[in-house]
């Protein structure tokens, strides 16, 4: 890496080398049976330079051909965006625990056993269900050095397990599923299997809803599939800078219900979204985004922050191995005090949404969403009475979150990037066959 940096410095004013190596092992079950065992090793190295004031970028999987990497970066820099930022100087990073060496000692046998324990309770509850399950462990090392002497190094372990079941009765299909992840080995599959059993119980009966306007409870999975993509987009400092975020000019203004608090937090110990610094070597910090319904911050990387005349929030992320761009590390929605039972009891007719399929396909920028209820239940006179199907739910995130009836008291991690409780909203448009 030092060699690449040295070579780049000969042709550019500034340079930064970003390297990631990873080792991943997974066991996968298909149709209730063990089917695949995989291991993946990968190395990638990215070079960002500032040459004649402009940004050049290249990436490679080859550590042995630094000249090619430098040449590609120089070629692209002719056309690159003018650099408005400086690479970070040596900094001290917060101590954030994301490495658990115990992961290494988890054997393939242990992982197979976890997978079997995920599937067994589900198939014994519903014998004709077919499950796919996956147990994965990985170790990722990140190394960043730049021409201003900045240097960051960390290693993170990630362990995850998940199960998805499909139940087919004639042409009626039911899909259930749950997953969990941590930087620690997960020794117990029970929590995950129990969620699936709960879904199966509630979906046992069918129910139909009337078209029109209905109150909706979004479960944590429901919040993830419906409401989060538009918010992640709206708080992106780059879209704010271009005037494409609907909340970009609303800093300091109340936009959402005053019960709503949201922040980005890469500093929570042993969470897969945590890290001591972002992908540009800027120290991690917790960034409040919504306080009491009011917009308080947006997320920035170095270049966007410089253009917007503000500071990076440590959210520079190289999502697909490209140049850094602002991106959340982990969105946290603050829990409230209402139980799911209390929410359900409060409803005369309404829906509980676990998964809204296709919700992210609409005009995400504007906050509009519309999707088919892939997994959701009808509430009638304070009770969940069965699963709904052939039903579309539509709305706009800014209208839906302007008035929240209640926020749940049990937050849950979804997909490693979001922690949220249940959200109970007064009215969404429902179209049903």
């Amino acid at each position, binding site marked *: 890496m030092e060699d690449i940096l040295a070579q780049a410095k000969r042709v550019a004013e500034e340079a930064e080398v970003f390297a990631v190596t990873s080792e991943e092992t997974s066991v996968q079950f298909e149709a209730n049976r063990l089917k695949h065992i995989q291991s993946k090793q990968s190395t990638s190295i990215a070079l960002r330079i500032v040459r004649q004031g402009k940004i050049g970028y290249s990436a490679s999987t080859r550590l042995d051909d630094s000249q090619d990497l430098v040449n590609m970066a120089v070629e692209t820099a002719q056309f690159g965006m003018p650099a408005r930022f400086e690479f970070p100087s040596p900094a001290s990073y917060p101590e954030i625990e994301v490495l658990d060496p115990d992961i290494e000692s988890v054997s393939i046998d242990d992982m197979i056993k976890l997978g079997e324990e995920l599937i067994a309770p589900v198939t014994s509850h519903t014998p004709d269900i077919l499950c796919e399950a996956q147990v994965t462990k990985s170790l990722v090392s990140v190394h960043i050095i730049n021409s201003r002497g900045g240097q960051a190094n960390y290693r993170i372990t990630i362990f995850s397990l998940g199960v998805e079941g499909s139940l087919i009765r004639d042409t009626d299909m039911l899909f259930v599923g749950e997953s969990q992840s941590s930087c620690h080995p997960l020794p117990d599959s029970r929590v995950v299997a129990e969620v699936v059993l709960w879904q199966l119980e509630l979906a046992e009966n069918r129910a139909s809803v009337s078209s029109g306007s209905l109150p909706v409870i979004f479960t944590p999975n429901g919040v993830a599939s419906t409401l989060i993509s538009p918010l992640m987009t709206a708080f992106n400092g780059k879209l704010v800078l271009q005037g494409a975020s609907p909340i970009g000019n609303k800093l300091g203004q109340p936009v959402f219900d005053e019960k709503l608090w949201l922040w980005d937090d890469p500093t929570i110990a042993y969470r897969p979204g945590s890290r001591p610094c972002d992908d540009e070597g800027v120290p991690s910090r917790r960034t409040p985004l919504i306080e009491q319904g009011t917009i308080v911050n947006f997320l920035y990387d170095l270049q966007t922050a410089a253009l917007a005349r503000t500071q990076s929030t440590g959210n520079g992320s190289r999502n697909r191995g490209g140049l850094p761009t602002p991106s959340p590390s982990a969105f946290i929605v603050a829990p409230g005090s209402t139980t799911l039972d209390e929410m359900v009891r409060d409803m005369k007719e309404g829906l509980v949404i676990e998964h809204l*399929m296709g919700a992210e396909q609409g005009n995400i920028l504007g906050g509009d969403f519309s999707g088919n209820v892939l997994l959701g239940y009808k509430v009638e006179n304070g009770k969940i009475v069965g699963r709904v199907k052939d039903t579309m739910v539509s709305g706009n995130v800014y209208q839906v979150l302007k008035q929240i009836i209640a926020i749940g008291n049990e937050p849950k991690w979804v997909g490693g990037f979001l922690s949220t409780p249940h959200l109970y909203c007064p009215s969404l448009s429902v179209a049903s066959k």
Partner: protein
Amino acid sequence: MTQIEVIGRQLAEVIKSYSADYIEARLEQSRTSHITYRGRELESIGKTSAVGGNIRALVRSGWGFVSFNDFDDLPGRVELAVNQAQFAGNRASQLAQVEPVVDIVPWDIDRSPVTIPLAEKKRLLDEYNGVIWRTPKLQTSIIGYGDSHKKVIFLNSSGSYIEQERADVTLRLTAVATEGSEVQQAGFSLGSKGDFSQIQGLHHQVEQMSQRAMELISAPQVKGGEYTVVLDPVLAGVFVHEAFGHLSESDFVYENDRLRQIMTLGRKFGSTELNIVDSAAVPGLRGSYKYDDEGVPATKTYLIREGKLVGRLHSRETAAKMKEKPTGNARAVSYRYPPIVRMTNTYIEPGSASFDDIIGDIKEGVYAKNWYGGTTSMEMFTFSAGEAYMIRNGKLAEMLRPVVLTGNVFTTLNNIDAIGNDLEMNQGGGCGKGEQVPLPVANGSPHIRIRHCLVGGK
């Protein structure tokens, strides 16, 4: 000889000394470039180069898979894959027989897109961005261009050795208009199998797209409910991909007795006018190839013929387990993943109706055009239109905000009651399945009319 050719020859020897029901290796060497614009400025430009490979082994129906881009200790990698397969195996392996193939497939594009100078690519994108920015009241624009060229070597324990090269070009443009806190966007996307000239000369379409973003600000949202819906060829292509294509991927079906009963060959899905095809053997499209990632030759597969289910897409394993012929549909997005059953170029064959015939007797309906996205759960699917209009008394009427349509595959295909005579293939976007995204595919259809389609809205 390039690096992967040398490694390929070594591996062909190494795998001989390991014992498994089947072993294969895939090696890849690729170059890519990308350019993105946000607003008036070029935002990001970059080039990449990658080399990597994988070993896949089958023992007693269990698969071991090892991917790497560090080429030290190749025997160790093979041994790991074989050991993993032994661990996972629990009953007799089944793999459809295919003749071993030794073939160096000649490169079929005159000019690889990655060798075109960045200045030439940038000039074209500058022109398009200029067109977008001539539209008044636009807030911002996003342009994403990407190209790739890769060489793939495939070899297996039956003696196959295949070298193929693949190139891909994609372009997506989005115009964003705002008024107060209203934000609306219009976009379009297209691609080609490596031919840069296919994304040139689109200035007129880019201008129309930008106009549309502005008009959407004042367009009404459709009232949610059931409508007679007419789909243009682009959206009907996405519809056939989501609504039916994924269900015909046999890896969902082969271990699932209930689904096998539902998907019995001969089952009626639509009218006798409905024919659905998947074919990687059609030349020159993004989903075209000579051999799939298991070294099986590409075929043209009828999925639906005259309304009845007549075929499905297979890997060697799913074909053997279902006692059908392999179709050459096992594909992987890169060396980091094992091949799984995927679509290639999927389309509805043309019928006889003109556009006027199709909309002529619709009193109130929705004309949905252009592609935003689509997804499926097998039974249910949703897909969204970037552009939509009301149809009133047989004529196109006011423009609508983008609409999301949903349906049930077992009823919606039966509700197609008119098929146009104007087949077009759409090469934008890419297909995702599990972690493997985006895979180059093409979709196509003529205009089609669907009765009783559920549309989300107010």
